């Protein structure tokens, strides 16, 4: 189905308490801040959040964290928000830390029908503890599982009215991967343009990955 248009508030009706959510962005760049703010305003809770960072103190996903709605965080660099460390030490959230390349590859695998893959990254380190390791051609690799989500909240630059997406500079980051790896993809865009106006060679996310468009 081509994407449908909703307001940020309406889009929240597709999310359930207990969902696994992916949220795009690196630092605060490429984070769908309007969608995150709309989510904070709901009374939905108990989320597993898959995101590179959990915002910064009181910003972006930091708000969701501070209102106690994140049960588990899966990502690579929570150091940008010391509140994550505090919540973790108080036993308020579970944390799963992955090397960033493993995180990306697991997102892509989740969207690509690949249940698991081997990576050299983290072999022989603490982050591979408890994970299956295997030698190919004399080198050690770690078996990593795909990441999938019920809903992804992502940020793109422009969409056409079918839902094809293009991004803006380094705000692209994890967003195209998350669009692939979730059952439902909600996209905050700067602008919606008529179909036929984006260059077909330059579309990064084909519209089949996109369900809901929200203008930010």
């Amino acid at each position, binding site marked *: 189905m*081509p994407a449908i248009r909703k307001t940020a508030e309406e889009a929240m009706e597709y999310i359930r308490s207990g969902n696994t959510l992916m949220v795009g962005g690196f630092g605060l760049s490429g984070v769908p801040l309007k969608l995150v703010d709309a989510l904070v305003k709901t009374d939905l809770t108990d989320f597993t959040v898959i995101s590179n960072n959990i915002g910064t103190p009181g910003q972006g996903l930091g708000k969701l964290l501070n209102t106690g709605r994140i049960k588990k965080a899966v990502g690579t660099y929570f150091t940008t928000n010391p509140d994550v460390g505090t919540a973790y030490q108080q036993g308020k959230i579970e944390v799963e830390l992955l090397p960033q390349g493993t995180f990306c590859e697991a997102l892509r695998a989740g969207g690509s*029908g690949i249940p698991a893959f081997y990576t050299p990254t983290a072999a022989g380190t603490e982050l591979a503890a408890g994970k299956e390791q295997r030698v190919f051609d004399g080198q050690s690799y770690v078996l990593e599982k795909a990441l999938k989500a019920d809903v992804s909240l992502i940020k793109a630059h422009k969409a056409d009215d079918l839902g094809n997406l293009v991004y803006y500079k380094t705000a692209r980051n994890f967003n195209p991967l998350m669009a692939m790896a979730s059952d439902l993809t909600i996209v905050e865009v700067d602008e919606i343009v008529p179909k036929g106006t984006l260059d077909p060679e330059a579309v990064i996310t084909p519209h089949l990955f996109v369900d809901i468009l929200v203008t930010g």
Partner: protein
Amino acid sequence: MSDMYTQEVRHSIARRAAQELRDGDIVNLGIGIPTLVNNYIPSDFNIHLHTENGMLEVGPSPSPDSVDPNLINASRQPISELPGASYFDSGMSFSIMRGGHLDATVIGALQVSQAGDLASWAVPGRTVLGVGGAMDLVVGAKRVIVATTHLTKDGNPKILPSCTYPLTAKQEVDVLVTEHAVFHFSEGQMTLVEIGEHLTLEELKAITPAGFGVHPGLTVAKRKEAIH
């Protein structure tokens, strides 16, 4: 059988298979009878065609003077580009397929088993050096609609208790459309949901070695092209 008769049967199957699609579906059409499906999509439906060599929003065959050898479908036939099209590499294209992002595929068959196994790429005793994208398509698409003649050209059955040809995938077929009937598959069971008015259940069973149940709401459909 005359060629004209054969063409009528193929179109009859394609017309019925098209009814299995839903408005808005993202669809990949395989080679053979499935390529005809595009002619029978209801005009008020928006169907979005994907081709595994790297494109979404495939348009109809171009006029001979606007053929572009670098704008082709997976059957290497010239196609055109609809507004809202996108191009991607084959890796992304198969992420789409294997990752479950196609709503449906319509695909041909050499054999289908009562469990929903499909054989479509190889014949025992013949060297077959081509498999292409069929296996990924069938494993990945949300609904696998097989569109095929009920029997082989030689009049042998294709719908069997189990496939005797090498498999394309196990238990992935959801719907089977032939010129005589429509079957649904669920949890390894095959169920007749529609039969052509031109034949009896006994006649159908006689040409269908596979074991199947009959849906309580069995439809009898007029398939004039298939009367023989």
